[in-house]
């Protein structure tokens, strides 16, 4: 099968279609009427009728009205379908006193809370535990040990996962181990939070599968309330030859 054959087949297919010029003009008029030009307000004032008459001339008003029934397809990508948010979780993730109000003064070692410029995602009610081919779940395995499980249905070409243990008042850093040699694990303190960060080395690919990431911490772990702990991950994967950017975030409440 040679290129010339493909070329001629595709050109034939191309010329099969003769667009309906009037329908196109009508749809454009409807589009333009639906949203004002970002350039100026004068046109907006001129309104639909003016847009139709000035630009298009022909094209029946009846047809234009019909064209108006069409969805004025937005140029931007439609909003991603979000996973159902977990609302008002009743079970507590750890044995905890009803009002855990740890005093700041008891932790002289911590630096003052840094001005957090970026929003922390994953709190109850603000979760997206599944996106595309990536699924996640967080759980508190035991006092001082929190775990995030990732199930990747497709290989990941990048991964940046942060387990955020906050507040970390009275906690001393434990250790962090990577579940896979291709994934680097680091542990840092950011304000009053412990950040366990797992990053897939550049140029590496994490095959599809289940991976468990664990954060361990010591110190005042008895009766610690894990309700504010979150995790968040960005990843890239390839589906149908197209790169997909995946973003998931959640917490450690049990999902029921």
């Amino acid at each position: 099968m040679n290129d010339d054959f493909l070329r001629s087949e595709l050109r034939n297919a191309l010329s099969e279609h003769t667009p309906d010029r009037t329908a196109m003009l009508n749809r454009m008029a409807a589009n333009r009427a639906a949203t004002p030009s970002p350039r100026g307000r004068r046109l907006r004032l001129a309104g639909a009728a003016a847009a139709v008459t000035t630009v298009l001339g022909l094209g029946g008003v009846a047809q234009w009205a019909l064209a108006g029934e069409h969805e004025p397809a937005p140029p931007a990508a439609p909003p991603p379908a979000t996973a159902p948010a977990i609302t008002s979780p009743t079970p507590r993730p750890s044995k905890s006193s009803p009002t855990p109000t740890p005093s700041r003064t008891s932790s002289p070692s911590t630096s003052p809370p840094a001005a957090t410029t970026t929003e922390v995602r994953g709190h109850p009610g603000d979760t997206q535990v599944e996106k595309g081919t990536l699924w996640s779940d967080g759980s508190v395995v035991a006092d001082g040990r929190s775990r995030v499980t990732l199930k990747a249905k497709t290989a990941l070409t990048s991964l940046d996962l942060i387990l955020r243990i906050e507040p970390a008042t009275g906690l001393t850093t434990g250790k962090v181990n990577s579940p896979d040699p291709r994934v680097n694990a680091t542990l840092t303190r950011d304000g009053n939070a412990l950040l366990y960060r797992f990053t897939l080395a550049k140029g590496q690919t994490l095959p599809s599968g289940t991976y468990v990431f664990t954060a361990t911490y010591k110190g005042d772990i008895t009766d610690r309330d894990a309700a504010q702990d979150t995790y968040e991950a960005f990843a890239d994967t390839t589906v149908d030859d197209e790169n997909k950017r995946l973003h998931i975030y959640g917490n450690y409440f049990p999902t029921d």
Partner: protein
Amino acid sequence: MREQAFHAFFEAHHVTLARLAYLLTGDTTAADDLAADALTEVWRHWDRVAAADDPAAYAKGIVANLARNWIRRQGRARRGLDLLGFPRSRPAPDVPAVLDVRSALRRLPYRRRACVVLRYAFDLPEQEVADILGISVGTVKSQTSRGAKQLADLLEDLRLPDQLGGWEVAR
């Protein structure tokens, strides 16, 4: 001035843009709608388009984007119907003996399809295809060759009878 210039652009390019959308989506009605939507975008950003090196390529890029979004919406709608338990006509599990170019094209992943269409049907240079789709020339090369191969395989049945002068083909 602006309206005149745009009108000239419309007349010069609306057929090409609609045909591009037609090959990308395989749908006659959607093709005209998508091309019209793309032209609306061109009109909205006319100053930028007119200043571009190649306004026609810019418009083709918009069509390619809108077509991909449209295909995704179709996919979601179909999956929605499946979830609700509506039956839908599925293609027979075995590949039909003869495929036309359009249905063969639809089986290609979107980016491959776009590369093949722009390279083969529109005969555009690799660099221009790369600009239109916002990908690298290397990607255009690999996607085009894979896409052409896949399309050729799918279309094999179309050509063989001609080639072999009516001899029965054992396969």
